[in-house]
């Protein structure tokens, strides 16, 4: 199982995480170990396993289309770092 540092750097971008070069090297080595270990299941025959078959007891519950209101809006947004009136305020996003 060969993984390149570039692969790991690309994954970091996807995950929105920043790493130093040393950290990237370490992660690359760790991935190799863990993913190599994973290939131990290669000897198992998984070709015919059908993941789309759904047992009856694993079907979704649904709710009826009824309105509910979360009253305490102040509490709901009390963890926001900055608000403007009832908006959440963030640094400008350029589209």
């Amino acid at each position, binding site marked *: 199982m060969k993984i390149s540092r570039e692969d790991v750097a690309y994954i970091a971008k996807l995950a929105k995480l920043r790493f130093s070069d040393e950290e990237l090297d370490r992660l690359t080595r760790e991935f190799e170990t863990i993913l190599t270990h994973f290939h131990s299941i290669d000897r198992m025959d998984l070709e015919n396993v059908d993941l789309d078959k759904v047992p009856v007891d694993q079907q979704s519950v649904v709710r009826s289309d009824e309105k509910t209101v979360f009253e305490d809006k102040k*509490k709901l947004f009390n963890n926001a770092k900055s608000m403007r009136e009832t908006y959440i305020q963030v640094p400008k996003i*350029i589209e």
Partner: protein
Amino acid sequence: MQSDYMSAWDISKGIAEKKFSAVEIVESHIKRIKERDGEIGAFLTLCEDEALAQAREVDEKISGGRPVGRLAGVPAAIKDNMCTDGIRTTCASKMLEDFIPPYNATVVERLLDEDAVIIGKTNMDEFAMGSSTENSAFRITKNPRDITRVPGGSSGGSAAAVAADMVPVTLGSDTGGSIRQPAAFCGVVGLKPTYGLVSRYGLIAFGSSLDQIGPFSKTVLDSALMLEAIQGKDERDSTSYRGEYQKSYTDSLGKDIKGMRIAVPKEFFMDGLDDEIAASVQESIKCFEGLGAKVDEISLPAAGDGLSAYYIISSAEASSNLARYDGIRYGYRAKDYTNIDELMEMSRSEAFGTEVKRRIMLGTYALSSGYYDEYYNRAQKFRKVLKGQFEDVFRSYDLILGPTSPVLPFKIGERNSDPLQMYLADVYTIIVNLVGVPAISIPCGRSTEGLPVGLQLIGPHYGELRILQAAHAFEQEIKLEL
């Protein structure tokens, strides 16, 4: 330490019979926490005022002759990844250091409905990722049985709080062994119920298809009592079990287990298992046979291969579940950034710890295009095969028995450097989460150094009663003094 211990069962009975008041109980437990937790470090938040107010309410109910719940006045502590309305819930992460949920998790509501008293929030590995509680951003929790050692993880705080008699019962969460492994390390009872039996609403997600909340206690009876309180269908959790729930577990304990068929997979006794644990488990098997159970060695071929499938699935789900922590709506926000992308990236990079980042990375990798089929999809297929093998066993057996952990509690700092070594501590517990069945860890012996050994009993889906009956019979038989 044993002298001042009182079980949840005895506390609720005593309060209902007015032998003592809820306030007295809560005050004495707070006092004990203050005396002991400086050394142990089980708690992240102590809710003294709220707890006393709750206790007073319980006392008023009792003095007013009103009915009270089955946990009336019982002090309980909750792992800090379950949301408590108005009380800081941190997941032991710098990311959520100041996070105050505006709602209660369903389990918290259920405990309050039963008149339990929430006394505090317990330490854990950050976002429940770890097996030693060393990954907490805030403090190290020590194993009350030997303070140079880890309490296990990720629910190490909840296990240690019970082991040190600071509270009779706590809640933990178990994604790959996070209740059972610390229970084994701390010498207490820890139960992971069937996936779906206890609502996950308000449990801050790690691996959504694996996460399950369960109790810690000193006795099997207390765990049964806690399970009665917290289980049940929840409209807010789509994965909540919709069938019939066992109304009472506590009523049915004490039944003998003659004729119970127990399977012992030989794969549980292969490389890496500590000799002393192996010996202790063999003793336990003899004890079960003495109780009239029929024990057979069987084979569960996929059991040994579960570890990496588990890490692929749990990390993949975690990478998605933890993406919401971006510094926008709540949680840590980096100080320096030049634009919104940097705000998100820096906030995440600064606030998440090493292990959390490692899993997010592994999970992102496993889901990324070109790798999905090779890893995530194959891991899911493996999971299905594993489920099939468990079902086969449960067609002929009532329970599966084995060690909870392959290793004894290790020294603080000992396994930090090698993630795979740390992951191996979960080898017997993770397969249970992959299959979704219930399992308990109960103390079954001690090593020569006096360290606790845990025994794991695994049941079929919704087989909690069977597990509890067997565990109770075993507990009464061996009468282990820890």
